[in-house]
């Protein structure tokens, strides 16, 4: 089968083949296993003594237990420093920057063209006198430019 190894390297252009894999010593593995088991047993014994037969529910809403009951206030912290500022930023970008500034520039180009067209249209008044006046004014302007302006 030529396709036998397709599955093992189907992502090959993306992921490089794994280099050496590290192995732990056997003694280290046993030691870790033993340590974990001891910890588990200690925890079970402690819990059985603490919450065993004579367990009463105490008021936990003080000090450390309140902090723990509220999960260290991590959710509230996230909410205050990440969620709400990002929400506000998103609303600001959407409402003000995108609508007014970025889109404003785009619409501004269109408006400027329309405004320019409206203003320039006024020049086409149909009155020959004003055309002649403009022509003479332009001639004088060009003459002055030609005579006095040396680049």
């Amino acid at each position: 089968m030529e396709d036998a190894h397709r599955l093992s390297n189907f992502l090959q252009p993306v992921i490089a083949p794994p280099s050496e894999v590290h192995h732990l010593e056997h003694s280290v593995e046993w030691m870790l296993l033993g340590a974990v088991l001891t910890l588990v047993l200690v925890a079970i014994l402690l819990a059985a003594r603490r919450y065993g037969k004579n367990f009463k529910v105490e008021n936990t809403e003080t000090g450390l237990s309140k902090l723990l009951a509220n999960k260290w206030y991590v959710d509230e912290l996230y909410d205050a420093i990440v969620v709400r500022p990002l929400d506000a930023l998103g609303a600001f970008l959407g409402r003000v920057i995108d609508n007014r500034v970025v889109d404003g520039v785009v619409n501004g180009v269109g408006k400027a063209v329309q405004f320019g067209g409206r203003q320039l249209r006024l020049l086409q008044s149909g009155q020959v006198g004003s055309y002649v006046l403009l022509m003479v004014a332009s001639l004088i302007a060009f003459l002055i430019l030609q005579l006095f302006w040396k680049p």
Partner: protein
Amino acid sequence: MYAAFDNFPALLIWLPLVGALLSFFMRSETAAKNVAVLFSLLALGVVGSSLLYVDSKYQALNQVSYVWLPGLESSFAFILDGLTRTLCLLTAVSFPLIFLFIPVGKYKQPHVFYGLMMLTQCGLMGVFMATDALVFYLFWELALIPVYFLSSIWGGEKRIRATFKFFIYTFVGSLFMLIGIIYIYLKTSGSFNLINFYNAALTHQEEGWLFALFFLAFAIKMPLFPFHTWQPDAYEQSPTPVTMVLSGIMVKMGLFGLMRWLIAMLPHGAKAHQTMVVVLAVIGMIYASLIAMRQDNIKRLIAYSSIAHIGLMALGIFTFQQVAVTGVVIQMFTHGVNVVALWMVADLIERQTGTLSMSALGGIAKKAPNLAIFMLVFAFANIALPLTNAFVGEFMIFSGVYAMSPWWAAAAGISIILSAVYTLNMVKNVFYGEAAAAVQGFMDIRPLQSFVFVVLTVLIFFVGVYPGPFLSMIAETVSLIVNKLTGI
């Protein structure tokens, strides 16, 4: 120009065109729809069978050239290579699914609607396959014009304003590109052929400002921040099938243009402007993601999410790294599939409840569990979870970006986190919780819709689990592009 139908590119141009003309002349809606479905399926069949003939010994099947304007040395020249095959496949897969999804009686004058849709498909195929600059420009506009009519006839309340803006915006961009095309043409030996354009005698300074002309056209089309403001309005106001074409396929015209008609053609210009584009792309990704978080309308949310995804793809292209650019090509395909799927779900919700406002929706999962399952798959694909299609592309893009600079990778990574935030938030608000008043009597999906969704789901997982064939198909074309940028 007369046709020889013994090659794939000619068929991919002619089939949608003939389908469009036939649809225009159909009397009844079912006839028009059947013609559109038939011809788009034929196009899919052509792309599908072309996948079996990728080898260079079949070159005659994948390349075609008819003389068009002999005096100008412009010809109808098309090629089907790894890059274009992927995009043509996306186009060919999307159209029949979109047609099947359109409910009967939804649009007045359906024969015109289907005809214009097929014409758009013809334009898209031409843009992707053209190897002649003038023909590329011709099809670039040919794809735009039917969309203008589709949106301004069948769109929402504010359709005229939104469509006009979209049209003017993209048209201004493409006129700048036309100036660039003519300038380069005058610097070649007098041919619009892509190879001649690649070899045009241009100074570095000329490449610099030509880059700006082409980049503007492509950046508007993608759209890249800050040229994106036509997009949320256009997506919201266009009829949903048109929005699917716009966001699923048409925006890929811009990304495709960057690869074939910009960085490979003006490598020095691209190198000189690399930092600018990278900065724009990263800003756009974070900017659009933050705005997406605060959208109440589902269509606008998907629109901004799309801007963020496109930003990532533009970033990938401008790393000029083989792995990232390959990732972008595959991501262009998968983003198309995923965003079309999301629009379909949004359309189903709007059809039944009359609203897309998240604050008025909720609890759809109770009424329509099947729809909810599909939506969750599409949402996961939008976030690019592993095993979904988008993961492959995004991973490759990110490894390229990381190789360029870990800092840019970290900044861009923020937008990935944010995409999970707004996508899952939308799923939660719309599908879970108590059933809102608007969703009472919500019906689950029907068999035909299920079929469409199953096809999309299969595509999502197939590309996500087994991207190998795609990657090997794309690799050669991408290395041709990337090699033009190395060593300069």
